[in-house]
């Protein structure tokens, strides 16, 4: 297959970026999107040009390291997958493909397609944990309803990629925050700090320059792990509960 690639190039956070156009040929439909970029980079290095910087690690859709806005969609044209799981068979021979970094005030560009998502760590440091240490009770001491454990797992599937933020016109991180809050709140051991957790994580999110949620639901549509916006409703309830307790 043959493609024309319009790739965002930016030297660093301070400089202004621009699109560069590259042609690429001889790509097998079974090649993954990131392998296609590997091939592009290999060509660029041979031509004495600087390769395109992009983040990736597991290439299995689980580490949340890869990102990319492809043809105007976070993680590209396929549903419920990450960019690293996208294959070129999803495109048509001869297509022009536009590739951009996540664009959000809270995720500054490091270089080309690489952004800095440290803000996500900071939100979780504000309360995304259960405050325990040392020796704890036996694992089967507290039975947990299977449905609750399953719901917790659904929410805990979030990979922290940031697609929800990049997709949201307000740049809100509500889906990400809600996923963690919900994952812990569904379990008895996580209920104890649930309201306080919700409040401090939302406050941190606001403080770090993420926007407010106006319920456009774009995040859910683009989340590679199918995290449901129902979690946002739960987060809102807990947040109000915490406010009332103040």
């Amino acid at each position, binding site marked *: 297959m043959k493609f024309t690639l319009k790739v965002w190039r930016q030297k*660093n956070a301070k400089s202004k970026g621009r699109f560069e156009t590259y042609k690429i040929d001889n790509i*097998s439909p079974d*090649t993954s999107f*990131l*392998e296609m970029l*590997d091939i592009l*980079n*290999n060509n*660029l*290095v041979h031509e004495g*040009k*600087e*390769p395109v*910087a992009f983040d990736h*690690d*597991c*290439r*299995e859709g*689980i*580490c*949340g*390291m890869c990102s990319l806005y492809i043809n105007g969609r976070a993680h590209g044209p*396929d549903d419920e997958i990450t960019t690293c*799981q996208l294959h070129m068979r999803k495109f048509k021979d001869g297509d022009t493909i536009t590739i951009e970094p996540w664009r959000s005030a809270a995720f500054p560009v*490091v*270089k080309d397609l*690489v952004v*800095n*998502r*440290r803000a*996500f*760590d900071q939100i*979780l440091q*504000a309360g*995304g*944990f*259960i405050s*325990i*240490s040392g*020796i*704890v*009770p*036996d*694992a*089967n001491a*507290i*039975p*947990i*309803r*299977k449905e609750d*454990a399953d719901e*917790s*797992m659904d929410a*805990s599937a979030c*990979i*922290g990629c940031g697609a929800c933020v990049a997709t949201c016109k307000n740049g809100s991180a509500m889906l990400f925050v809600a996923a963690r809050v919900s994952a*812990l709140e569904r*379990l008895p*051991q*996580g209920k104890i700090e649930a309201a306080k957790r919700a409040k401090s994580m939302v406050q941190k999110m606001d403080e770090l320059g993420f926007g407010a949620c106006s319920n456009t639901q774009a995040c859910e549509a683009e989340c590679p792990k199918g995290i449901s916006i129902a979690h946002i409703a739960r987060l809102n309830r807990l947040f109000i509960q915490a406010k009332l307790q103040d």
Partner: protein
Amino acid sequence: MAEIKLDSKIPSGPLAEKWTRHKAAIKVVSPANKRKMEIIVVGTGLGGASAAATLGELGYNVKIFCISDSPRRAHSIAAQGGINAAKNYQNDNDSVYRLFYDTIKGGDFRAREANVYRLAEVSNLIIDKCVAQGVPFAREYGGLLANRSFGGAQVSRTFYARGQTGQQLLLGAYASLNRQIAAGTVKSYNRREMLDLVLIDGKARGIIVRNLETGEIERYGAHAVVIATGGYGNTYFLSTNAMNSNGSALIQCYKKGACFANPCFVQIHPTCIPVHGKQQSKLTLMSESLRNDGKIWTPKKLEDVEKLRKKQIKPSQIPEEDRDYYLERRYPAFGNLVPRDVASRAAKERCDAGYGVNDTGLAVFLDFAEPIKRLGRKAIEERYGNLFQMYEKITDVNPYEEPMQIYPAIHYTMGGLWVDYNLMTTIPGLYAIGEANFSDHGGNRLGASALMQGLADGYYVLPNTIGDYLSADIQTPKTDVNHPAFEEAENRVKARIEKLFKIKGKQTVDELHKKLGNIMWEYVGMARNEKGLKKAIKLIDELTKEFWTDVLVPGKNGDFNQELEKALRLADFLEIGKLIALDALDRRESCGGHFREEMQTEEGEAKRDDANYMYVAAWEYRENQDPKLHKEPLNYEVVKVSTRNYKN
């Protein structure tokens, strides 16, 4: 450098009491002194994250480093299938002893009894801790924890969180880490890559790192350094490891005097998606848990193989009587659940005999038609839904309808830095945990035991044993990073980087890495022999020269530069590759993941040589000459050493 003498420091006393007695005997550091001690942890996988969080909880000052933009993205996140523990919740006669025994036997009698027993002992605490952290393990309708079986075991002792166990365990450890970061005991340095270890007066006192965002070289000092940088499987280029997984920290420590143990024990996982073309960057694992229900087979008739390759028939059209369920045929007692090394070699045997089912001839089937019929599609979906989805996304084949195609691939490295019972390397103050050390898996690791070992090391072993070392150091002031040893290490790192830029050769890093991968897979892969290994050593020497004269690294240093990152890692992979081959050449026996063709029975089963090779091979670095081999003899006091038998 001082003469190296291996001392495993295994405590005396009966096996089951060693750890308890040892803990009682080792020194502790008072809370007031802990605040003054600094510890560097390199790596944020299950090993590093759990260690740093626990050390922080204890009150130490911790600095933790990782390559990715967040600690949560460490390679451990990708583990799918599960984590073992000897809880015996199923009342199927499991016990600490049985888990210990299975691990020793699975490791083909090349691990230390005392370490493995301790591992089995603390395994139960891990599950308790994870549940308390909020890890959403799978549960039964009654609310209790669910279990599944893994290879090499006849009991059901594996805890899991769908097909994302590693993710959930790491999120648990990362949450504990975040709590300590918020509390100020741990400082996290992301997008930093360790490039050298700094010794002062022979003790590990700090590291040199490259800030991957800015290209700056930075110095960090501490009272002790913990290496938790994972395995070196990417030496082979194609593996199931994450792209940034590497063995560089191991080589840096090795060159400073830490012995590298059993490098040739590399695990080849039987159930990976087969290679599809020359442009492939990595291989995808299909979790071992699939072997709980999936049945592995190839056709009995070569003409069916021919038709499959020409796509004239679908696998589901081959009738039952024309299928060879070769694992069930060869190993009736364990069937599809034989250990990984056995399953991998059996797949190779079938493919070498011409029964490979895809156009490259390197694939066998993993089939779910029978369990789907027996249990219903919903039950299978519940167990493996995300794995099936992943398979379909990659291959465009729906595994609910047609069997998966799988083939063995490089997956895990049992070898690593040599450590004593306290997890300390041959350098005082330098520790290694998780996949980075060699300690518990012998010649072959059982499924769901790496997560167990990483967390055992990090939550329960190291935080205790490191106190013994640090208690002698409470008077030592903060390490001064202006010490000449830091200066010297930093200059060496900078010179190495400059050298790479100056070469301006004709081959990219990936092109050279693929060449190394081909050599490794061909001669140091699933089956090895003397002639091939000697050839591999020669080829790797030549390739190393080629690398240092012909690599092309674009750009400059003071910048985000992924090609430079890869080049630095490849330079070290070349050294590891040679070490693997040297070790494989020395070990003239077939044992665990290491199969020497000269050493097999008439039925093609592995032949161990206990009389001559019952030792840990620990390699000491020497400049400009081959490394020196030190042998740590293995003494089995409790277990009766036997030939592994999975047939009956």
